[in-house]
């Protein structure tokens, strides 16, 4: 469980930083892209979504001590749920935007669809696999 505490404290710090960057980029009003990361600059995904990522980071950090205690683990779970929620919405939006063909036809080509789902990704989507670790700890406590 000690390893878990360290892991979620680190994940919390990264998540908090991502949320903070989201909010800063939104305030600047511009999109920011670097390698496989893209930070949205609009009020909805960047501002509102960034605020939720920030909350997820706070949930993780506040539960870093004594992870074996169910109340602490539930906060980790809540942080992960918030990440899943934001990432799930982003993935759903990408898929729904990539299926229609626009001016070229009813449906997009396979290449077009893959292009729409390819990187760069928003921070929450990149945090998603790391947040899944909570499932291991839930199984362990059960």
């Amino acid at each position: 469980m000690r390893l878990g505490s360290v892991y979620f404290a680190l994940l919390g710090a990264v998540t908090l930083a991502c949320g903070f960057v989201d909010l800063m980029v939104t305030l600047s009003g511009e999109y920011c892209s670097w390698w496989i990361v893209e930070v949205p600059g609009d009020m909805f995904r960047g501002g509102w979504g960034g605020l939720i990522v920030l909350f997820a980071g706070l949930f993780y950090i506040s539960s870093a001590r004594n992870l074996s205690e169910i109340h602490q683990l539930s906060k980790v779970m809540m942080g992960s749920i918030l990440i899943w929620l934001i990432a799930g919405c982003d993935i759903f939006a990408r898929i729904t935007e990539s299926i229609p063909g626009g001016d070229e036809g009813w449906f997009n080509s396979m290449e077009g669809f893959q292009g729409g789902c390819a990187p760069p990704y928003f921070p929450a989507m990149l945090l998603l696999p790391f947040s899944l670790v909570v499932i291991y700890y839930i199984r362990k406590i059960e």
Partner: protein
Amino acid sequence: MSLTVDERWDLIDRISRETVTAGVYKETLTDVIGEITIKPMTGIPVVIASLYLFWSIFGSFAGFFTDGFFVKFFDQYWLPWWQLHFPDTWEWLYYIVVGDPLADNCLEAFGMLTSGLFVAVGVVLPAIFIFYLMLTLLEDVGYLPRLAVLVDTILHKIGLHGYAIVPTILSLGCNVPGVTATRILETRKERFVMMTLLAIFVPCGAQLGIMQQVIPETMGLVLLYLVIGYFVTGFVLNRIIPGKSPEILMDVPPYQKPLLRNVALKIWMRMREFFTSAIPFVLLGVLMVNVLYLAGFIQWLSCTLSPLFVYWFGIPEATVGPLIAAFLRKDLAVAQLSVIEMTWYQMVTAVVLVSIYFPCLATFVMLLREGWKELLGSLAVLIVVVTVYGGFVHLVGILAGVA
């Protein structure tokens, strides 16, 4: 045979010993998550996240069907087909059924079978479906009672209690079930305040869907004006309406997995209502507005109300037509507004006015069923609110230098 009090208690003890088994309560993760979503400190971030989920999925799903497929189908196939094949023997009939012969998209044509069907099926149907799906899931998971607990303190400021969030959320789908749901409130005062606020400040799913389609950039500002109006008017009504707003005890159920059958049944019941009442109303709305245009009534009304619209609300007099259509369907009115030439702030003001101006006919009928005194009271409040709040929105625009 009669028993003394002690003998009765002994009997109760004996029955309890034989029938009740006491175990040790073990807190589960679901219980604790249920607890933290109800405490303000941890529950408010979850509310913010739930609303994000709601709107994100709503926008993606509705956009997928409307922008991805329906706009193309209606503008490239449906409208040209009707323009080509509908006999133009009677010009007025063509105008009513197909609309403007020079229009190249269904929002501008404004015929019964072009704009009417596009708005009802192409824009509103996907929006309403996803709205009800999300609402049913939140309801069946057990989140709504928690939301009610969290907003209880805020809603007490406007003379309501936490469960008033249920009619409010239902009204975001359609005002008709929202008005019916006000019956869960105990006192006449609470029901009156709730019905008035629903009729004035809560836009329905159809209207939200069309707003998402025609004014996506400024929709946030329109909603902000409506939220402010909801609370300010509620606060004032709470002060001036006599009556009580009692406290209630809420039963918060544990979180549970929604059952597919229940979800499907609820969505079907709510969608059936849409098919049977909303679609005919949209078509009827287009018909009536077109007839009023042809009869010259709307032009006359535009001239008569011109000073109020132009100087007090700061919007073009051409918006009178959509405001009349709003009485039948508000989604239709927003679609009509989108083709009138005006600045972005005038558009915001006009959409806010469409929202707060008269409830749509279906809601009007529901209000009447709740009592004619309530209806007259709501209408009196509505006239004052529209005049004052419409002027206020214009004033904000002037002060910000955008009106």
